[in-house]
């Protein structure tokens, strides 16, 4: 398995903490198209390969554009099809998009756990 670098820019950061099996997404994710989201997807896929129980912490992800939610949807479908992964999404009920969109992701994968703080 190749080592996937964490990603950090002025606008956002993606960090995989292997110890807690958690990927943290923070800031403003407004990448242009699915292709640009591939590195983010790679971090998530690598994390899910390493652990059967994965948490994605979105609490500090204030903005996510349409390509971003599309990427997240595809990731959830992949995890569901993989079949042996327990996935948890941590959201913040003060971030409007998280209160709406994360519920739709649960429709794609009913076993998905949503935790709002």
């Amino acid at each position, binding site marked *: 398995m190749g080592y996937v670098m964490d990603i950090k820019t002025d606008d956002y950061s993606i960090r995989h903490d292997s110890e807690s099996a958690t990927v943290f997404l923070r800031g403003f994710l407004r990448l242009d198209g699915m292709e640009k989201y591939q590195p983010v997807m790679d971090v998530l896929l690598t994390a899910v390969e390493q652990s059967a129980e994965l948490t994605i912490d979105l609490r500090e992800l204030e*903005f*996510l*554009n*349409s390509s971003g*939610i*599309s990427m997240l*949807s*595809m990731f959830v*479908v992949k995890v569901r099809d993989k079949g042996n992964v327990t996935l948890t999404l941590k959201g913040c009920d003060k*971030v*409007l*998009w998280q209160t*709406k*969109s994360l519920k*739709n*992701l649960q*429709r*794609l994968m009913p076993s998905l756990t949503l935790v709002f703080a």
Partner: protein
Amino acid sequence: MVRAIEGLSTVKLWVVYSSNRLFLLQFLRACFRKLQPLSHQPCDPETPPPASLISTTVYRAEAECSPVAEHSEAEIDHDDSREEKLVAELDALRQEVQRLQQANRDLYLSLATTAEHGDLIEAQLQQTNEQLQAEVEERKRAQATLKALIKAISKRKDDLEIVVQTIMEHGDVMDTQWSLKLTEINKIASLDALTEIANRRRFDEHLEYQWKQMTRERSPLALILCDIDRFKQFNDAYGHLAGDDCLQRVASALNHCVNRPSDLVARFGGEEFAAVLPQTDLEGAIRVAERMQRAIARLQIDHPQSLVSPFVTLSIGVACVMPASDLSSEELIHLADQHLYLAKQQGRNQIIAALAPSYPTVL
């Protein structure tokens, strides 16, 4: 040949048991004729058959018959005629036998052909059946594959529908989120960070808007400009933090002196404040200015360095014009500023609302 020998065994039996010698002779002749085609050897009925074929018993029987033949010529003629008939019948029978044999061969051939044909057809049917079975199996497999494919595609379609809906709703909610953010940022952009009332930028915007609005409505637009008296001395005496606190309290008090949504109190700069009052004549504006003066007096912010009062006071300039397209809002500001300057000049802690003669007023 086997059949011929079997025939001879029968002949022996007849010789032993028959008492009619004539009949026996005729029978033997007939037998010889019969044997001829079977043995494929030329055979004269009068000539005795080879010893190998006829046993001695037979010849003895014929020898014993001869006295009988001599006995009656008429009988013999009669017998000849019967014999000819029998020969003819035998010929006919032989032909019949040949025909039947031919027919038999034909039938056998036909049977063989039919059987062979049947086998062939059966083999073909078997082959076709096997092919069909294989085809059925193949189709079953194809059907199963297709079903699995349809199931997979159907699942994919459901997924995509949810994804599309998610993206769409996400787009909408992000729009809302951006819009809220924009409103918040606009609010921040139009507020003075220290006093949290409208800043100069917001003041300019609002004044310009109301100027155009009042021009259309042909309504008066009033402006109040005020300044905290001797604020520099206040700062020097109490420090900048106390100065900031003073500014905050004065701003808040002034802000509470106007009620209508179109009225706006703003920090004009430094220790200067302004109030834009649409649809307000000079008299109304002076009333607001007086209210402001009282509100600040009620605050009773100590200001020992002020020469006019122990507390913080305001110098106020009031102006009111009927906006017109050939005038600009800057002229209203200029006028109010002149009145403010006058108020300061004339001893501070007072309101000046003198009208410039060139402007129409509603007083």
